């Protein structure tokens, strides 16, 4: 027997020398040899030899099924196993004298993971909620990117689409970075660089870049889905290879080198696909060959299909191996996805809106009935009782309707806390980050969209706001530990989110210098008030950071922040003192659906001001205003000259006679104030905001309509747009 064993070991050693990692057929041959040796050993150390064979077999299985972090290390282990077997079985040496391969059940010996996968392995301890958020967000961004790419296919010059695409990768990069998904971060960063070149106009958006971007989206999506399924586990080797190859393609595109055509791969398998189906779908096997093989498989009594196909030499073994991996990957991803999904019911937003519309109408109809004179005239006590009950239910329904979309801002704040910690660590600053009021509830759409701007703002605070090191803080007479505070609180019908730091404050001079460079101002800007100067940082491409870093700069940021916040019908204020710090305050409507409105009458028509935009309302007679160049009017109020506009000019039709014009609604738009003359004040009310439909989307000065308590529609004014359109027309005295 031992002689046989010797031969077998010798043959094994030869086979090992010839085997390539990627040659699955050779690997399975090795597997068979190890198994045979393990089953047939005798002699003094047969136990040890059998266990060594077992370890080697396990290692081969891991390589074949791509379950290893580092195939090279596995191959080393297999090699060491052969040396051991030679020692034990051929030379009769004791196990103690030999480098016995250790059991890699913890993958301790088997894997020498590179830094990246190490990082990600640590993530097993990472907050699962964060990962889930990241995955959801990234997939959304990727889906978006796909849509934008399709738009670019038809119009490669679409600036908005290019910017959107860039932002998608930019955001994924940022979030992946602070969660610690290094591989994803680097990859997204590379793609972002490529798109940045397109954005700057250095490269033209051509079919090649679109192709590369499409492929990058796909690769990234698979990688993110893997992260979703497996949390921090290292991705299988072919996924890493795929990612690396893709990264090279992206770099090649950025540098204008010719595109390495991607190696044809089998398409990713759907969960539940059978091996044969995967191979046919990938075009690796013609369907008729598959049928032959299936028949042959039946004859051969349950020999695996892959083996049959290879034997019938329809297909190289590598393809079968890839298909098997693909099948397994799909299965794994599916299984764990099922496990991770929380039980919620997804409802189409449109259905929810229709429900809310219906509730709104019910409330109006109910109010009309409840207040109808006929009903009161009846004076029936039982009817009155039923009406009260109906009223209660209606109000309850209304409350529920509005709360349907409300979620706490906590998850967003948690993300920010983590981000701030990471940023502080990266920049070596000592920062204490605290959150207040994370239970504050906001409309879900608002919470979903506020993440991006907040990321930029937290970065801004930690990166630029806080002094670069403790020495600088000491010199300024501040405690070494810097403070960054994130707060949310509700005030009336709106929510305020504040980001406060006790750093350097905004640098007025630097901003003005930059504004001059960019041609935003012609002179020294000495006459500009602080808020006007601060407002410059929201200009596109206005970054005062001296260099592009991994976390900020590039001028992506504050302009996006402002746009996002305006889309949410909010506004952003800056309060900054040199040397003391900066407070950014974001004011947001509680929900996108309801605003607190002040209803006024002008020429017999009702208009609604968002209460947020009103500073105060003062009685004002026309004779109190002063003419200005005979074209405009102003009024002196608390030492300030405020331009006055007559809202009657804005309103079509209605009463032609001049109204009372007895009240001025003083509004604030940016840092400027203005007064708008109205006839009377009808009161304050929460109104449900309705869009005016696609066809009336871009009305200057109107942000939407509201259905008032009598069922008719009132126009909701958008103060910024209103002032712009009123300034265009001179006010008639």
């Amino acid at each position, binding site marked *: 027997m031992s002689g046989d064993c010797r031969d077998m070991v010798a043959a094994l050693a030869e086979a090992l020398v010839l085997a390539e990692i990627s040659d699955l057929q050779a690997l399975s041959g090795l597997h068979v040899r190890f198994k045979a040796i393990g089953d047939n050993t005798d002699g003094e150390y047969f136990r040890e030899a059998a266990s060594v064979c077992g370890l080697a077999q396990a290692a081969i299985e891991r390589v074949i099924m791509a379950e290893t972090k580092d195939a090279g290390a596995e191959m080393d282990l297999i090699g060491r196993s052969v040396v051991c077997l030679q020692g034990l079985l051929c030379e009769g040496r004791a196990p103690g004298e030999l480098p016995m391969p250790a059991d890699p059940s913890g993958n301790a010996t088997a894997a020498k993971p590179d830094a990246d996968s190490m990082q990600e392995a640590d993530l097993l301890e990472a907050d699962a909620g964060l990962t889930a958020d990241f995955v959801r967000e990234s997939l959304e961004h990727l889906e978006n990117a796909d849509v934008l790419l399709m738009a670019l296919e038809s119009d490669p010059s679409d600036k908005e689409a290019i910017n959107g695409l860039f932002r998608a990768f930019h955001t994924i990069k940022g979030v992946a970075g602070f969660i610690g998904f290094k591989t994803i971060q680097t990859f997204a960063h590379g793609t972002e660089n490529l798109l940045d070149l397109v954005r700057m106009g250095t490269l033209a958006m051509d079919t090649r870049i679109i192709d590369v971007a499409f492929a990058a989206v796909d690769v990234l999506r698979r990688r993110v889905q893997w992260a979703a399924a497996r949390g921090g586990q290292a991705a299988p080797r072919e996924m890493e290879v795929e990612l690396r190859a893709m990264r090279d393609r992206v770099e090649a595109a950025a540098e204008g080198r010719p595109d390495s055509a991607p190696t044809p791969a089998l398409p990713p398998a759907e969960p539940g696909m059978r091996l044969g189906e995967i191979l046919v779908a990938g075009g690796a096997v013609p369907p008729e060959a598959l049928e032959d093989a299936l028949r042959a498989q039946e004859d051969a009594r349950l020999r695996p299909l892959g083996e049959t196909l290879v034997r019938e030499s329809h297909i190289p073994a590598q393809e079968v191996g890839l298909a098997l991996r693909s099948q397994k990957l799909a299965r794994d991803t599916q299984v764990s996805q099922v496990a991770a999904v929380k039980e919620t019911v997804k409802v189409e937003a449109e259905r929810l809106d229709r429900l809310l*519309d*219906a509730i*709104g*109408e019910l409330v109006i109809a109910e109010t009309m009935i409840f207040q109808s004179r006929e009903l009161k005239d009846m004076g029936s006590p039982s009817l009155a009782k039923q009406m009260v009950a109906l009223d209660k239910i209606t109000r309850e329904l209304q409350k529920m309707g509005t709360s349907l979309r409300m979620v706490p801002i906590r998850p967003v704040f948690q993300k920010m806390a983590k981000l701030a910690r990471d940023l502080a660590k990266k920049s070596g600053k000592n920062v204490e980050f605290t959150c207040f009021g994370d239970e504050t509830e906001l409309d879900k759409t608002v919470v979903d969209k506020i993440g991006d701007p907040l990321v930029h703002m937290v970065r801004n605070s930690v990166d630029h706001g806080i002094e670069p090191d403790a020495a600088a803080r000491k010199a300024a007479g501040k405690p070494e530990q810097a403070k960054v505070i994130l707060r949310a609180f509700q005030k009336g019908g709106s929510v305020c989110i504040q980001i406060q730091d006790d750093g350097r404050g905004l640098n007025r001079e630097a901003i003005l210098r930059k504004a001059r460079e960019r041609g*935003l101002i012609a002179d020294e800007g000495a006459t500009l008030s602080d808020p006007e100067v601060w*407002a*410059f940082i*929201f*200009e596109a491409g206005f970054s005062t950071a001296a260099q592009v870093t991994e976390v900020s700069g590039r001028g992506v940021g504050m302009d996006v922040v402002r746009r996002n916040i305006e889309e949410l019908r909010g506004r952003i204020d800056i309060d900054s003192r040199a040397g003391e710090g900066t407070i950014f305050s974001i004011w947001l409507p509680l929900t996108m659906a309801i605003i607190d409105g002040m209803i006024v009458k002008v020429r017999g*028509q009702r208009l609604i001001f968002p209460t947020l935009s009103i500073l105060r309302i003062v009685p004002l007679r026309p004779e109190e205003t002063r003419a200005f160049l005979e074209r405009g009017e102003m009024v002196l109020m608390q030492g300030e000259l405020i331009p006055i506009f007559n809202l009657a000019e*804005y*309103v*079509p*039709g*209605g009463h032609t006679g001049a109204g009372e014009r007895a009240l001025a609604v003083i509004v604030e738009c*940016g840092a400027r104030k203005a007064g708008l003359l109205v006839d009377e004040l009808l009161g304050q009310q929460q109104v449900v905001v*309705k*869009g*005016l*439909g*696609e*066809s*009336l*989307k*871009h*009305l*200057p*000065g*109107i942000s*939407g*309509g509201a*259905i008032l308590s009598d*069922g*008719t*529609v*009132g*126009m909701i004014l*958008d103060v*910024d*747009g209103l002032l*712009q*359109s009123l300034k*265009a027309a001179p006010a008639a005295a």
Partner: protein
Amino acid sequence: MSDKNNGGTAAASIAKAGKYLTFQMGKEVYGIEILKVQEIIGMMPVTRVPKTPDFVRGVINLRGKVIPVIELRRKFGMETREDTDRTCIVVVQVTGAVGTVTMGLLVDEVSEVLNVGQEQIEAPPSFGAGVDTDFILGMGKVGQKVLMLLDADKVLSSEELVLAAQTKNAEGKGA
């Protein structure tokens, strides 16, 4: 912007046979494909909207949805008249550049639904350059009646509801 199909010749796309809702404006009878009509409602208070062309009467609350109402008389350049108790709003769904849009058409009076066969339809007559007949898909002759069959999508190409002389408020906002 100009549609190649409308060279003013009979080569323009012609109305399809089918059921048409007919309504009157003064003495003229118009037809609109019944498939486009969602409902017909009586007159209700209409809120005027600033910065819209004069043919936009305003907006109404249609069961919680705000929809614009077009005064067809003004749209077609006819003389206006007071609303009567027969004035009503035909709610239609038209397909524009931005997808499907629901709108109301303010008409003098709704008459009936007529079946118009292909043989009863002919191309709209040409009145020279002065008269815009772009939105007339064809003329239907049913018995003694002559209907003007409207291309609702064209009449209400939704882009033109906002006055062109506006300051673009979306992107054009300064700092």
